[in-house]
């Protein structure tokens, strides 16, 4: 209150004082005044704190060049060299170690009742085609991708700089082009198998029983896909979509994105890629050396009826009702 009432008085005082000051200083030479053009100039520190990057106007066509300083590059470097690197390394080495221990303890999972000699169709030609198109391209994409992340530490010292560059250059082209059949494969696998991969109550029981993986002779019931396979399916679909979106962004740099989006896309691509490679190693293990009779499903498409009864009892039942199981009269689920 007091200040307000004083204000007009103060204003009058300073006004008068200012007028006198002006009258006195006006005739003085200009050199006596200190002109400081930086007092109101843009400050690098302040701008960086406010905007996290410095941007201005440029007179060249490349508009990306209008960013003068982007310290975010250092954060991306840290993320790329530390987080992405270790996520991939730990996932892959972790899964390899786990599989080694599993194989040492459990060994190859055999068909408990022995092969029956009779087979039934598990995957038709089209299903196997899309599986192997996706799988084949994924292996190349995975190896070339891992080469970008780990090659300079693992392969470069072994084969030398020139050979490593040749390999990486070819790898880059392979990665760019094979991305397309991979993406198409993911879409078709989704359409072909989504119906049988909706989670249900059977999966809960299957997971509670550990999938029968850790106990000999234990075979929790499952339909066409058990909960483990559903997890693989959804990792491939969700991971594949994440890799596809981030990959397309990386494939068309700065077409519709800015620097922040490019950096994010690379981080997503690196982390998801590493994790999916780890998951696929487990998938390859159980589909080949890990389980007797499993490879036939994607090999010839014809699986042994006893294998099917043990691992997909409810599916065999469904197929038997359709008359698709040889000797269906005796087709009593193993459980």
């Amino acid at each position, binding site marked *: 209150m007091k200040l307000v009432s004083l204000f007009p008085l103060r204003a009058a005082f300073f006004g008068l004082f200012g007028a006198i000051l002006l009258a006195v200083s006006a005739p003085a030479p200009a050199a006596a005044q200190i002109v400081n053009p*930086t007092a109101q100039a*843009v400050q690098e520190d302040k701008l960086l704190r406010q905007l996290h990057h410095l941007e201005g106007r440029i007179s060249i066509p490349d508009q990306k060049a209008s*960013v003068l300083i*982007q310290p975010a590059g250092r954060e991306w470097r840290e993320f*790329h*060299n530390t987080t992405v690197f270790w996520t991939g390394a730990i996932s892959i080495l972790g899964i390899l170690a786990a599989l080694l221990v599993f194989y040492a303890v459990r060994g190859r999972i055999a068909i408990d009742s022995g092969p029956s000699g009779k087979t039934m169709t598990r995957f038709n030609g089209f299903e196997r085609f899309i599986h192997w198109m996706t799988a084949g391209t994924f292996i190349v994409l995975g190896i070339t991708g891992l080469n970008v992340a780990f090659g300079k530490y693992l392969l470069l010292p072994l084969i030398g700089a020139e050979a490593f560059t040749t390999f990486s250059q070819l790898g880059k082209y392979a990665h760019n082009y094979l991305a397309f059949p991979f993406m198409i494969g993911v879409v078709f696998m989704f359409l072909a198998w989504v119906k049988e991969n909706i989670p249900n109550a059977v999966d809960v029981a299957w997971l509670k029983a550990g999938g029968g993986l850790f106990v000999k002779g234990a075979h929790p019931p499952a339909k066409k896909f058990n909960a483990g396979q559903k997890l693989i399916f959804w990792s491939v679909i969700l991971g594949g979509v994440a890799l596809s979106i981030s990959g397309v962004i990386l494939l068309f740099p700065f077409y519709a994105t800015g620097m922040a989006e490019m950096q994010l896309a690379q981080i997503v691509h690196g982390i998801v890629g590493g994790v999916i490679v780890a998951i696929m190693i487990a998938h390859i293990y159980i589909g080949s050396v890990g389980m007797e009779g499993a490879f036939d499903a994607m090999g010839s498409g014809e699986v042994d009826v006893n294998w099917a009864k043990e691992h997909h009892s409810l599916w065999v039942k469904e197929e038997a009702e359709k008359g698709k199981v040889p000797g269906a009269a005796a087709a009593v689920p193993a459980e």
Partner: protein
Amino acid sequence: MARMKFLCDADRCIECNACVTACKNEHEVPWGINRRRVVTINDGKPGERSVSMACMHCTDAPCAAVCPVDCFYTTADAVVLHSKDLCIGCGYCFYACPFGAPQYPKVGNFGSRGKMDKCTYCAGGPEADNSSAEYAKYGANRLAEGKLPICAEMCSTKALLAGDGAMIATIYKERVLKRGYGSGAWGWKVAYKETITV
């Protein structure tokens, strides 16, 4: 050995873009690639400043750290150079670089990038000094001839300084003390983790 650095005195830069032109001419830099550029901040507003920027030849260079084929190397003069024979054009150095220095010629399909090109501090590349192979890939090697980068050498207002870090810092300090102001060594904190205090 010297620790080579760039310093752009923003209070002197008049955005004439001669450094950009001289660089392009000296090294026969192809169309679409700019090793150096001038960015004007707060254009048309009070306190507007222009800064000429290229590769700052960072201490602990981020480009070298993220390169998947390890194509970067640092010379005895602390100039960050790279080998175009080893570069695969992945673009990672551009994501990591705080100064937008790496440039890529567009080749082939979609966004595929050719071998990265950037400011060499007029110091060429891994090939023999001033050989035609070096010139074709990296441009002139003025440092090997005992000359400083052309951009700084011909700067009409001497805003852009190139040379040993300690020496150009001294020149800048003297200027600031004499004229009574200075908006600082742009990019130094990010590139060299130090700045010039007057």
